[in-house]
């Protein structure tokens, strides 16, 4: 056993000066030095002696240490040359059967949404994930009225982002929000007096103030997503916009609520189903991070949330991202 084999779910990614291994099963990334990246890619599946023969003798000890480090982090295992063919790489294809996979519905105090229509149309589209985001105070009992129309729908997960008010947690319990609506995932409470996470972590309080859909688009290490779905999707599509539809607080049907143009208004007869089928609607879906200036040189490009709304040009790096991949620093 003289070959160190990375697990297929641990994938090395090269940035301009930094290198990482994306661990798609344990949802973390590990920084690695350039030379280890080279060993894992250029010298992939080679015997350790053969690898060492490419480097000066004084570096051999470091090579042993690198492999020890990877083994300790359970990124791979030692195997024989005969076994290598049994361990193929992860296939990076990405496909999904639905036209629309996720939707955002924004609400503010002036919203006059026809929720029955919105949820029926999203259900018809087989949309799986919904985010309901309220900028102003929305009482839990009023939220329950809205959600009532979602009850027998196909939505696998509904996340709620809602503004803090006194006794909100009480109302959540009193209305049995989580037991009544079993497909609710996380309820995030913004504009809260303090940051707090509940024990079972499906209730999160945050001091962050979200007043409009423009309070979005920050790129942050905490928002990176490390899983096979996102990683493979990022190789072929835009992870921010692909298969997404948004209803902004005025009822406008958009790809992202922060875009300044819409394709129709759901409350004025616009059909979500018809709009998302328009060719124009999906024009940005296939912009991958490998095509975006600066981002294409960033080691985080396949795990980053991206943002195509706050940019100067659609192929520019997100304006609210302060990571500089050329320096390898958050500014």
């Amino acid at each position, binding site marked *: 056993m003289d070959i160190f084999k990375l697990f297929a*779910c641990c994938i090395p990614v090269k940035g301009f000066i930094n290198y990482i291994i994306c661990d798609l099963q344990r949802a973390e990334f590990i920084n690695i030095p350039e030379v280890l990246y080279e060993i894992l890619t250029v010298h992939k599946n080679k015997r350790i002696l053969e690898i060492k023969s490419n480097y000066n003798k004084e570096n051999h000890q470091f090579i042993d240490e690198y492999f020890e480090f990877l083994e300790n982090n*359970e990124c791979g295992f030692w195997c024989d040359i005969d076994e290598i063919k*049994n361990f*193929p*790489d992860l*296939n*990076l*294809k990405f*496909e999904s*059967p639905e036209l629309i996979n996720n939707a955002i519905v924004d609400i503010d105090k002036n919203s006059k949404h026809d929720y029955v229509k919105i949820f029926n149309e999203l259900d018809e589209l087989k949309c799986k994930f919904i985010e309901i985001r309220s900028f102003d105070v929305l009482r839990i009992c009023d939220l329950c009225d809205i959600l009532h129309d979602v009850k027998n729908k196909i939505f696998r997960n509904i996340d709620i982002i809602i503004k803090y008010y006194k006794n909100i947690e009480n109302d959540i319990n009193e209305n049995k929000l989580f037991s009544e609506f079993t497909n609710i995932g996380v309820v995030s409470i913004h504009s809260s007096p303090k940051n707090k996470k509940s024990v079972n972590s499906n209730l999160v309080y945050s001091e962050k103030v979200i007043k409009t859909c423009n309070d979005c688009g920050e790129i942050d290490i905490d928002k990176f997503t490390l899983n096979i779905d996102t990683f493979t999707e990022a190789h072929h599509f835009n992870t921010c916009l692909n298969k997404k539809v948004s209803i902004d607080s005025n009822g406008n049907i958009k790809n992202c609520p922060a875009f300044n143009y819409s394709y129709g208004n759901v409350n004025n007869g616009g059909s979500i189903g018809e709009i998302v089928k328009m060719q124009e609607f999906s024009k940005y879906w296939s912009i991958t991070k490998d095509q975006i200036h600066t981002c294409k040189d960033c080691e985080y490009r396949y795990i980053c949330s991206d943002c195509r709304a706050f940019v100067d040009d659609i192929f520019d790096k997100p304006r609210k991202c302060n990571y500089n991949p050329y320096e390898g620093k958050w500014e």
Partner: protein
Amino acid sequence: MILIISKEKTELSTEEVIDWIVFFGKKFIRINGDEFSKKGNVEISLDNSDLLIKYKDIEIPFSKVSFVWFRRWLDRDFYDLYNNSDIDYSIIDQLIFYQSSNIISLRELLFKFLDKKKWLSPPSKIVLNKIHVLVEASRVGFNIPETKICSTRRELINFFNTHKKIISKDLNDPLFFFDEQNYYTSITNVISKRKILGLSDEFPPSFFQKLVEKRYEIRIFYLNKKCYSMAIFSQNDKRTKIDFRNYNEGNPNRFVPYKLPRDIEKKIILLMQNLDLTTGSIDMIKDKFGNYIFLEINPVGQFGMVSEPCNYYLEKEIAKYLISQDNG
């Protein structure tokens, strides 16, 4: 038309296959055991010599069903009886027995009328006997662990003394049961000398095997002569060393795509054909010496747990297979 027999809850994989059937623009009808027997979402009416199924808005005669995909039936859930304070507890067992037999007769009705259709996993084929499967596996040339079924402490001690390290397993399917808070299941366990000495002289017949020291486990999802395999590195973690289902959420085992050698795949295909199975999940071990050891077949095993970490899109493959078999 494709008929899917499933259950209402915890069947995400079934739903993902359905998403792909919809993607390919094909029609299907679904019967969930629990909805059929309890909730009244399913109706069956007699139309002279044919039966008519109605599920939500779709109504079709059984004669129009050309292919059946059987994905389990229902969880036996009788909470409502236990929670009913009007019922005298002494008769609950009898009521459960009565209700079970009603549900079974409904299921039998379906199976009888669909008897001549093409099925993926016909109910008559999926009742496997572990010992029979081991014998058949050995016949096609697989290594299998030394196995013993016994019911006395004396015999078990002999078996233990021969092999030193032994495990116990379910003779039949694993047991699952729930109460309000917890969920219990039987898993594979190491049997120590101490445990054996603590047993009574005689016990119900139980299944024992020599413990195979594994390098990694292999889970194969088999569909129509194709093997989709995954290696499970459960060896490093004490909790998962014997049975990876004893899952460690904080530090999950590695699940990676695996390509079996051609001769092993050929044996699997032969074995599945001999057992008349078109699909199933197969458990194997690669032992410390590099041998492939056959363990067992689960005819309605989960494919989601192989599909997701290996990015195999098995849900799409199954949908394609169902569609290819459906001629109506």
